[in-house]
């Protein structure tokens, strides 16, 4: 095809097979979903600003908690990581593009349809999904609104998109590396994504099977989850969490890869232990398959089951600890500077660890009977997802944006965005630990009076955090439109092939493979 540039007009985006174009589309789509999911969250927090019912009906409140979860998990976090993978993996392994560029286009373009389908349910009679993002049967079957079928098909499409994306990523990594780049020379972001992609291929089909069984129960008279017909609702939870637990690692492993790239750059030291990071990631991925029932300690499992899942869960703290120590020892005695990507990465290490510790508390089966389905759980998973997954995405955008668009972002604005987000998220989610331990259940539109103060604080933090993200949008657009010219390296001596090409990265890179030292 030679050295042609991008096509003109809208067709460029519709028909593109270029990994950079598709990466950008994934990232913009994910940001749009992030804002939409954020608006849903703000409806929740506005309603919970004081006890009693003031803004929305409980039925609509339930739709908001459900849609917030679904949109953030499947619409914001996962596509953002796929977008980063599209942009970065070919540049990091010295490949000209993804292995399957046409499928790449397809796996992106079915996503907007999936989410249009999902969002349209909010305007249907009976409302959208209102059974929580975990959609436990029989809430999502016998008692579901009629729109549940749209939800099921939306999940099918999202799953197909993820699976195609993963196949593409694995094929790229295994097949398109520049000569000389052995597996153990790959950047950690590539490694973590390779493992994540395998996780996706292993569990997204199980999710598809799970919603297919729901579909059959609802429309074709089977009784997979219907006790009256000989089925079992607890089976739903087993199938769902067999997908669900690896899914939470799908949302965090690429984040590990991102901070493992950023911290060495700004500590000006190589990563403390590369091989141990790779093995820790693989161990976490393996363990994620044998711990699912820790989400279900209260269903009435035998003591042997409770103990097995409790100990297996706690075992995950070991490889995770290896990672945290790795990042800390990388920073130890380094010549650290605190540019925005580094700030987000350091906050990631600290706050993700807090979320990990509350996870360990939840892993203790006897204690979980108190914490189960309270705001403590909400606090826990928001601490691993917001300063975990989301902060790592922010860090990645600040770190690689100058390479993508050729301009430096405004460091002062970036730092302001960091501090607003950092303060906002802690004010939002830290008080949730307290109300949860005191007994406030999750997913309720109203609560007892004694929880009022902390809920008010959390709501104020949520609005601060939410509006800071509009500021982030402004910073990104401002950077794309102009700013100081970025150098080829952008940062001081960063590691990786992506820093050897000009900024902005040309439309086609590595059409001839680079030489690997």
């Amino acid at each position, binding site marked *: 095809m030679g050295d042609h540039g991008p096509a003109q007009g809208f067709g460029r985006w519709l028909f593109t097979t270029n990994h950079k174009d598709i990466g950008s589309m994934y990232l913009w789509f994910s940001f749009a979903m992030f804002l939409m999911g954020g608006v849903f969250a703000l409806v929740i927090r506005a309603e919970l600003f004081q006890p009693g019912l003031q803004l929305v009906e409980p039925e609509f409140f339930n739709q908001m908690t459900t849609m917030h979860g679904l949109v953030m998990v499947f619409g914001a976090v996962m596509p953002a990581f796929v977008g980063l993978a599209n942009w970065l993996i070919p540049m990091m392994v010295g490949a000209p593009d993804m292995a*399957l560029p046409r499928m790449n286009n397809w796996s992106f373009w079915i996503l907007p349809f999936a989410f249009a389908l999902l969002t349209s349910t909010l305007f249907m009679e009976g409302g959208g999904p209102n059974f929580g993002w975990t959609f436990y049967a029989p809430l999502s079957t016998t008692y579901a609104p009629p729109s549940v079928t749209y939800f099921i098909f939306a999940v099918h499409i999202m799953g197909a998109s993820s699976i195609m994306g993963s196949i593409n990523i694995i094929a790229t990594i295994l*097949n398109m590396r520049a000569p000389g780049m052995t597996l153990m020379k790959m950047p950690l972001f590539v490694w973590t994504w390779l493992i994540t992609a395998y996780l996706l291929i292993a569990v997204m089909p*199980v999710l598809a099977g799970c919603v297919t069984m729901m579909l059959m129960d609802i429309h074709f008279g*089977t*009784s997979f989850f219907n006790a009256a*017909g*000989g089925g*079992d609702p607890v089976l739903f939870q087993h199938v769902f969490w067999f997908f669900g637990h690896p899914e939470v690692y799908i949302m965090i492993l690429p984040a590990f890869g991102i901070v493992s790239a950023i911290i060495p750059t700004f500590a000006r030291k190589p990563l403390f232990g590369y091989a141990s990071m790779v093995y820790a990631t693989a161990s976490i991925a393996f363990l994620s398959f044998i711990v699912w029932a820790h989400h279900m300690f209260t269903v009435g499992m035998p003591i042997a089951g409770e103990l097995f899942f409790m100990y297996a869960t706690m075992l995950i703290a070991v490889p995770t600890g290896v990672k945290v120590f790795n990042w800390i020892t990388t920073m130890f005695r380094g010549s650290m500077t605190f540019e925005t990507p580094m700030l987000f990465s350091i906050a990631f290490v600290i706050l993700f660890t807090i979320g990990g510790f509350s996870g360990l508390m939840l892993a203790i089966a006897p204690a979980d009977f108190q914490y189960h389905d309270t705001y403590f759980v909400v606090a826990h998973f928001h601490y691993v997802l917001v300063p975990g997954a989301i902060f790592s995405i922010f860090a990645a955008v600040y770190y690689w944006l100058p390479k993508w668009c050729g301009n430096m972002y405004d460091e002062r604005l970036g730092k302001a965005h960091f501090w607003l987000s950092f303060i906002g998220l802690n004010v939002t989610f830290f008080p949730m630990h307290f109300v949860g331990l005191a007994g406030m259940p999750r997913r309720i539109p109203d609560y007892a009076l004694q929880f009022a103060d902390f809920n008010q604080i959390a709501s104020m933090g949520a609005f601060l955090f939410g509006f800071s993200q509009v500021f982030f949008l402004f910073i990104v657009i401002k950077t794309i439109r102009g700013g100081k010219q970025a150098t080829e390296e952008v940062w001081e001596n960063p590691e990786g092939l992506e820093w050897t090409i000009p900024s902005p990265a040309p439309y086609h890179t590595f059409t001839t493979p680079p030489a690997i030292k």
Partner: protein
Amino acid sequence: MKSSPSIKGIVARLLLVTVGMFGFGFALVPLYDMFCDITGLNGKTNAEAFIPLAELIDTSREVTVQFVATNNDYMPWEFKPQVFKMKVHPGEEIETTFYAKNPSAKSMMAQAIPSVSPSRAASYFLKTECFCFNQQQLAAGEAIDMPLKFIVDRDLPDNVSTITLSYTLFDITNGGAIAGNSLAIR
């Protein structure tokens, strides 16, 4: 990389994994039932009538059996055991009845789903006849005494002194349960 497999090969293999895992999701259903069956978890009792052999009665031991009847959501029937509690000897065949009445103005179909607690006693609670093996149809206003015959196995662990048999009654008038499927697991 010279030795690496072709992209086509990788894609084919990964697609195979995808299809396999989709199947595995469905395989979890029988696996789950098998697991519950082997371990006796979930309080599930025998799905088909137990044929009693010449059972010896262990008169040296008495076990308390309690009966619980619950209606599932929106189920309007009156449903209760005629005897709430009894003492039985292991090995003895016992007969009791549950009372059901359809107070509504239309004919209705119901299915009772049993569960035994503690779950480790489930596999020792053997039903030789049970109304839960069939669906129950009652005309408007009709009442019925539904029979249950059971034997508590003499091998019941010594530390179990009370067994609770609980029935939940489901309204399946509009096909809530599927006849073919309903007998598979009970």
